[in-house]
């Protein structure tokens, strides 16, 4: 799953530690989410969406779903 967390965090000028504190998780977790090494749970994804005042689908993108969508459009 791809996500825009790093870009959104940079736009707001927040550090990973500050975002981690807001989300009540460790900085390691924020880092893993940003690098795509860990997909957050639904409650945490909602929390991230709330903090950035966006919808979940505006932050997270299902790579498999988007690949299928492109394939369907190409066909």
């Amino acid at each position: 799953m791809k996500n825009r967390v790093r870009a959104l965090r940079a736009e707001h000028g927040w550090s990973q530690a500050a975002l981690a504190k807001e989300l009540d998780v460790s900085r390691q977790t924020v880092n893993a989410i940003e690098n795509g090494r860990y997909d957050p749970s639904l409650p945490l994804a909602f929390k991230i969406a709330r903090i950035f005042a966006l919808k979940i689908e505006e932050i997270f993108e299902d790579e498999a779903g988007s690949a299928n969508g492109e394939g369907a459009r190409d066909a």
Partner: protein
Amino acid sequence: MPEDRPLEPPAESPEDRKSRLGFGACHAQGKAPVLWSLATAGAMFAAVLLRKWFEWPRAALVVLALLPVLPLIGMCVAMARASSRLDELQRRIQLEALGLTVLVMSVVLVSLGMLESFGLIGHFDPTMAWVLMVAIYVISFWWIGRKYRS
């Protein structure tokens, strides 16, 4: 949170400071279970050495034999306290590490048990299994945590 109100770097609360610098620092950083584990291992070796060096009445021998149980209980409490503070990724890493530890320990214990029952190795002290288990868990936790780090 609106975009025009950037998040301020969080100010350090007295609890944070106490956790960083005070007696709670070990718990906050998840080091307490490791320290208790080391204390347990130390108590085990100390008890064995003290038994060899001195003559003990039977009642004192019971106390000496059960000496490592005290830090072991401390380790259990510290593990429970540390686990309750973990976030979802850290819990996932812990769960995977525990699973891997169970698998590795199964292979090691069955192998040692069979070798011992066939008389190919000497007696395997069951308390050493605990030391081995902690060592495997620590290595598993570090190794599994690596895949989530950049």
